[in-house]
């Protein structure tokens, strides 16, 4: 019985420490972004626009993975490449 209680307290302690740590990390980032100077905000805007252009436009519309898009299995891909290399 006492062992079960000890285990329960131990888990509770670990859980609360873990939650505190996550809270502190989140707070750290939140404050960091909140107190960011204007040049920092400008940079984040550039990063977000860049990532949007790269992943939402370029990757989807122009850069599909050729082999994944045209073949289903690894064997088919390998056969296609051998055909390309030997024709």
């Amino acid at each position, binding site marked *: 019985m006492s062992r079960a209680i000890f285990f329960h307290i131990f888990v509770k302690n670990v859980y609360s420490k873990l939650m505190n740590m996550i809270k502190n990390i989140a707070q750290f980032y939140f404050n960091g972004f909140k107190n960011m100077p204007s040049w920092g905000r400008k940079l984040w805007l550039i990063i977000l626009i860049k990532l949007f252009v790269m992943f939402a436009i370029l990757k989807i519309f*122009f850069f599909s993975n050729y082999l994944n898009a045209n073949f289903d299995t690894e064997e088919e891909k390998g056969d296609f490449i051998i055909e*390309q*290399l030997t*024709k």
Partner: protein
Amino acid sequence: MTDSIDLSTVDWSRAQFALTAMFHYIFVPLTLGLSFIIAVMESLWVKTGNEEWKTATKFWMKLFGINFAIGVSTGIILEFEFGTNWSNYSWFVGDIFGAPLAVEGIMAFFMESTFIAIMFFGWNKVSKKYHLISSWLVFLGANLSALWILVANAWMQNPVGMVFNPDTARNEMIDFWAVLFSATAMNKFFHTILAAFLLASIFVLGVSSWYLLKKRHISIAKKSILVSSIFGLSVSLLTLYSGDTSSRDIAKIQPMKFAAMEGLYEGKTHAPLVLAGFLSTNKEGIEECKHAIEVPGLLSLMTHYNSQSFIPGIKDVINGYTSNEGKIYLPITERITKGKIAINALRDYKSQKKKGSALEIDKSLKLFKENYHHFGYGYMKSPKEAIPNISLTFYSFHIMVSLGLLFILLFIVSCFLVYKDKIEKYRWILWANLICIPLAYIATQCGWIVAELGRQPWVVQDLMPTKIAATNIDTTSVQITFWIFTLLFTTLLIAEIKILLTQIKKGPKEGDK
């Protein structure tokens, strides 16, 4: 065998890859080198308690942040291109390329991005020492990222530690350590990161010199010049040394690239080192260096520690030669024949596998394995295809070396003047330091031109020529994305320069706690 691939697609894919890689590499060296300078300055603050070191650290950290933010993830576009434009290549090298890049992604990039947050947001929130450790870990993470990428690149120049699997058409890694610690990988890593440190030193030296010219932030500028000139002089000498060892490795594993770097058409014993020269086209229609200022015997001496040793020229690599160590290099025509045998054997192996004739399967496989190291030559129609763009390789190499020597001189003079505490009185050296910032970028870009154009026609040395590596896709789509990238990259570059210049003009925030 190459008729079905549209060469204009290959050329546009190459142009797009070169544009992306060169743009990405505008940001990389400053990130690699500046992270070290920042960590050193912060260490000096922690050790001495002098607040000026903290101000300097915060100022250079700001410029580091701008450069990092604009450059971050531009390298991911290269990975998009691998999958779309270079699918044959990506499949062919997949297992080798995948491992170092995965390690880079998991270990180095996450390390870098975690500690960068502490570096920027952690002032007055974490202890001095914890902040300092974070700064050093950012430096370590950035440089570890570079290590894995350069290992992957080095493998393409010198494919070791792998075996080709004819069933899957992939090269499979059999010796991770051979890939990681090949002489080419180590030379490439050290030469590249040292050159990056050199560029960052010149950047700090140049910007600080501008403050002295403007008579602003004099004390912090002098402190920055002290760190950057000492660090710059050390790394520029090491860059010279690593460049020398790298060249010796190239002479051994990529003799054609080496001959192109030197503009050497006919091989020579007691070969001279060309200090400066011009190329002209000979009667065979190949460019060679004829009008040059050269030091007799020095190239032989530097390459083999023997001034009488033989250095093969382009003609020798094409016609075949015997090296100083007695190793026989076959003529390209013979390698083309053997390469075609390997390609046909691979085709036969695959078709025999379907038919199930064990004897024929073994026969084809044996023939394929015997000739695999000539595989890529089988796609060539003439030996001349094995020659890279000589003028770009030759001039880029000589510009890089000349600028490298100029930078050493610059650091020596700056170190001396800062030691004598007289640097602000010599305006010409301050101007020279400032002018050298764009020259350092030119030198590093030239280095990559030598490395990547000099190794053409190969994407994987001797095994896969670039024209076979490309995906047979519509040229128009590659052209469209090329122009989108040109627009995107130009905009990003303008944004970076504008934000960077604004912050430089504002200068360090003195007295900022």
